[in-house]
């Protein structure tokens, strides 16, 4: 069971900020493939991964990063802090 978080326009497009996901995905990419199948909103949010960043357990990672031992995965657009 992994907690999946969405921020900014990903949160708005998917319609929720957090969901619990039962998964056997071992990488972020595998998790994204699973999330895309939930509904059209998820599919739309993940239609262009160049516009999406991901953090596993609060650390920025690439999409090929492992999910072994991961508890929280967050998806969001490129950051605009400062």
């Amino acid at each position, binding site marked *: 069971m992994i907690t999946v978080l969405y921020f*900014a*326009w990903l949160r708005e497009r998917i319609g929720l900020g957090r969901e619990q996901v039962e998964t056997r995905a071992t990488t972020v990419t595998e998790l994204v493939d699973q999330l895309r199948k939930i509904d059209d909103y998820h599919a739309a949010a993940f239609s262009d991964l160049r516009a999406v960043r991901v953090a596993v357990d609060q650390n920025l990672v690439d999409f090929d990063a492992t999910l072994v031992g991961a508890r929280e995965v967050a998806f969001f*657009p*490129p*950051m*605009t*802090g400062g």
Partner: protein
Amino acid sequence: MQLFLQEQAFDPWALAGQFSSALNGAGAMVTFSGIVRDDGGLTQLEIEHYPNMSRPAIMAIMQEAQARFHLLDAMVIHRYGILAAGEVIMMVATAALHRREAFEAAEYLMDYLKSRAPFWKKEYRAEGTFWVDAKDSDEAALKRW
């Protein structure tokens, strides 16, 4: 080093004064304040953040800056929630023996906060709401370091 993440407005100059008063042996102090730019059409700015990550991410950036630029001290304040035009979004303060380190550390912190701290800005305008796009120039700015 101090980090404040908060929804409520703050007085940047009172905090800068406290930071300054606590310095010991510094020769140079730099502050940067980011202000909600009033371009005529903006009614408010919303800042969303990722609470579990924003604090550790910024602390890591601050520790990297302190080591790299031999800072005597550093402070970051960053707001989230709803802000009006003209309000201060965030402030960075750095202190070092010499001006070059204090300036570079402040620029380094800003470049990383812009593109590596989990904050997202949404503009409210008469025409609607718009998520602010990350700028290529902000991503490019990181290459300097």
